[in-house]
Structures are given as C-alpha cells and as structure tokens.
C-alpha cells in the first residue's frame, strides 16, 4: 500500500489559490471552513514564498493523540480521517496540529464549535464509499475512485504534489537536482519523522 503524502514545492507555488478553490468546490466545503489555504511568507519582499497547506496526514498524528473521544483513525494509505459522529468539537486537535488543519463551524454564540472538519486527502470518512451520507459530512471520496486529491491534480505549476510519499519525494529530489536549489519540503520534518531528508 502506498503511504499518501502532500508536498508543496514553494519554488513553484505562484499563490493562484486554485488548490483552495478546487477543494472548496469538490467537497462543497461550507463558508468559513478552509481545508486548504495558501500562506505567503515575506509578502512583497525579497525571498517571498507561498506555500499551500492542509492536513499533512502525519505519521504520528498529534490530533489523534489528544482527541478526548478518540474520533480519529488512519487508513491503510496513511490518511488521517475522523468521524464527525463521534467528534464533540472540543478544539484540542487544533491546538495540537502543527499545520492549523482542523476547522470548526461556529454553531452558537461566543466560541461554541461544531464538529471538526479537515482535509480528508479526498478520501471521505467512515461511511460507505461515495454515498450521499459520506459526501454530506466529508465531501468526495476520490481515492475510492482511484483518483488523487483534486487540489494537487489542479495545480497548474505542479507545486503541490499528492500521492505515494516515495514517488513525490523522488519527483521533488529530481527537481532540486536539476535546478540546483530548493527550499525544502515544507512541513515534512514535522509531519513525517523520517521525511526530513527530502
């Protein structure tokens, strides 16, 4: 089984936000929820870099560890998913997540949070694959259809790569070798303990 990962090559990201839009549209993500976002560092200055960030589907996921109701699970592909039926909206996963991935709809006054929503690597949730119920809660299940996440598929510069971790790491290494520089695979050292060499 492949070990699914995301990789954003910040030398290529042009901050077009197509990945963000593709994600929003594919999963009909509600207003206020951002499963994927593009962050620009050093905006307008020398060394400006944009990085597309979502759930990195960590090796030893902090969200899974801190969840008080144990609503997370990991698929055979290494994708970190959760059950919205079990989530109580406590917000612990947001404090533990190194990447700001968990999102919460506001359901009442003040800070009352609804069930957590996050990137599923286009792999749906615990419901049966590609059912109405699954789509309503988690969005499309492209992995079950043999497709990769739409954000990366849409990426016009192929800055954002999604797929088997070894394959995308190889692609990135070849790029760095050919152009002679690279600013690293953002988040890999934090998300995948062994992936920092990429």
């Amino acid at each position, binding site marked *: 089984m492949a070990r699914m990962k995301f990789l954003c090559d910040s030398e290529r990201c042009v901050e077009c936000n197509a990945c963000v839009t593709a994600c929003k549209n594919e999963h009909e993500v509600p207003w206020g929820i*951002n499963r994927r*976002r*593009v962050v620009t560092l050093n905006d307008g200055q020398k060394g400006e870099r944009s990085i597309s960030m979502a759930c990195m589907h960590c090796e030893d996921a902090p969200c899974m*560890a801190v969840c008080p*109701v*144990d609503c997370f699970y990991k698929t055979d592909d290494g994708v970190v998913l959760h059950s919205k039926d079990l989530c109580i909206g406590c*917000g612990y996963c947001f404090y533990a997540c*190194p990447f700001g991935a968990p999102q919460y709809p506001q359901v009442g006054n003040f800070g009352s949070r609804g069930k957590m929503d996050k990137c599923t690597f286009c792999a749906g949730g615990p419901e049966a694959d590609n059912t109405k119920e699954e789509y309503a809660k988690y969005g499309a299940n492209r992995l079950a259809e043999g497709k990769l996440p739409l954000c990366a598929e849409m990426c016009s510069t192929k800055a954002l790569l999604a797929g088997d971790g070894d394959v995308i790491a190889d692609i990135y290494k070849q790029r760095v070798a050919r152009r002679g520089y690279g600013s690293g695979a953002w988040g890999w050292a934090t998300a995948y303990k062994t992936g920092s060499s990429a």
Partner: protein
Amino acid sequence: MTIGKGGILGAVLLTLVLLFAPFASGLAQQAPPANDAALIEQLKGPLAGRVSIPDAKSGLLIQPQGRDWRQTLEGPVKAGGGWLLILSVVAIALFMAIRGRIKVDSGLSGRTIERFNGIERFAHWLTAVCFIVLGLSGLNLSFGKSLILPLIGPEAFTGLSTFGKLAHNYLSFPFVFGVLLMAVLWIRHNIFTGVDMQWFRQGGGLFSRGVHPPAGKFNGGQKVIFWLVVLGAIVLAVSGYILMFPFYFTDMAGMQLSLIVHAIAGMVMVAVILGHIYIGSIGMEGAFDAMGTGQVDVNWAREHHSLWVKEQSRAGGED
C-alpha cells in the same frame, strides 16, 4: 511519550515566552531557510505569513509547538494528575484505616448550636454540586477515553462527553458565583493567626486521639482549604473562560498554555477536595451536620472550634 520532569517546566516556559512575544522576532527580513529543521531552529516559534482568508489564525503556517503541547498534555500532565488522584485516594484510605472515624471525645451533648446559616450552606452546596459535575466532566476529557470508552463504546461515550462538555461550560457560571459568595461570607474568618500556627504544630489533632488545638470559626486546615478553593477557582476561571472563548483573548500559544494550566489546576483541586469531602462526611462524627442542617452538637463545637464557641456564648448564643 514522556518528556521527564524538566519537560513540563520547559513547555510552560516556552509557552510563556511565546505568549509574551508572539511573532515579535519578525521573519520579515529573513529569506526562508533551506529546510524545515533549519527553519524551526531559526525561528524557535510559530511561522506565520499573509493569507487571503479573513482569519488571522489561518496565517499560521506551521507551529511545531503543537507537538510539544501534545507531549506535555498526554505525558506529564496526565501521568502526574493520574498519580496524584490515585495517591490521594490511597492516602485517605490509609488515614481511614489507621485513624478510623474521628469521634466526639466527650460524647454528644444533645444540644446544638448554629454553625452555618442558610446563605452559607447555599453558597457551599451550590459550589459543591457544580464542582462535582465540573470535576467529573473534566476528568472524563482526560481519562475517559482510557477508562470509560472501552466499557460503553464510542457512540455512547461521545454522547456522554458532549453532555459533559455542555455541563462543564454552563455550570462554570454558578460555580464561580458560589465561590465568590463563599469568599465574601467567610474571608474575614479565614485570615491566618497565631492560633492557626498552634493548630498546625499539633497536626490539627488529626493524628492523635483526644488532642484538640483551639480554633475559631475555621481551623488552620479549613483556612488552607478556603484559600486553595478561592485561588484555585480564580486560576480555573481565568484559564477556563479563555478556553471557552477560543482566540478572543489570546493567540495559539496562550490557548495551549491555558489548557495545560486548566488541566493541572483542575486535577490538583479534585485531589484537595477529595480530602475535604472525606473529613466532612464519613471521616468525622458530627462534622456533616455543620453543612447539613447547619446545627452542630455543642460538644463537637467545643472540641473542634473552641474559640468560636466562646465567641458565640459571649454574643448571647444558645450555650
């Protein structure tokens, strides 16, 4: 999982530093470093940038501190809190086995004197009932997934935890009101004096039969409980309301610190109150009446609160 004794202190210090210097070490002037490891080394803090989403939080690209927070919470905080609670129960059981129920040495007189009036008892029980629900629902968030979830299954456990979370949020308001009321009613009786020093020197008479150091309305031990409750409630209320209104008052580091502080303070308070509940109920003959009916036996009062009884007599009380 565990990160040793220094880990928790380190994490608290780190979060404190981050709390007071968020994004201060401007990354604006620096080019992004070669890789994650170098980047984290260089920043020693969260990495944020500009984002088109109208939500400042989403500009936080990477915060490796989330991992430290998880290690602290799942490691030393839970282990320390768990052992503290186990040891408290063991200590109470040992005390009960060795000392037994503390009797009224001179026997019950049959005559009573009013110790706590209606308002005092209302304040106490309002706080007590809230505290029990708050404590149980709080412990559920820490230990429920290991202890209760395997017994009742994930769906029922989520139902229980959802109810617990709602109860925890809403009961915080009457709890804080109850503590404030007790503070106002009793603060003048809880100033430490020389009499309390004698009480502490004699171990409050807890460990020896027939020893009854003098005490006013509250003895040294009760004063310690009073101040622990008042100060503990302040810490719990401040950290708790920060958590209840996420990101209204502070940033990510502040939220993380608040949860750690809230968890530690909560577990310490539960351990303290376990002892309080024991000595106020089955641990001492005649003690429960003080908060039950408000009327205590005169002989009980003479043994445990001699100065207070004299004061009441002078003021023209029942005795």
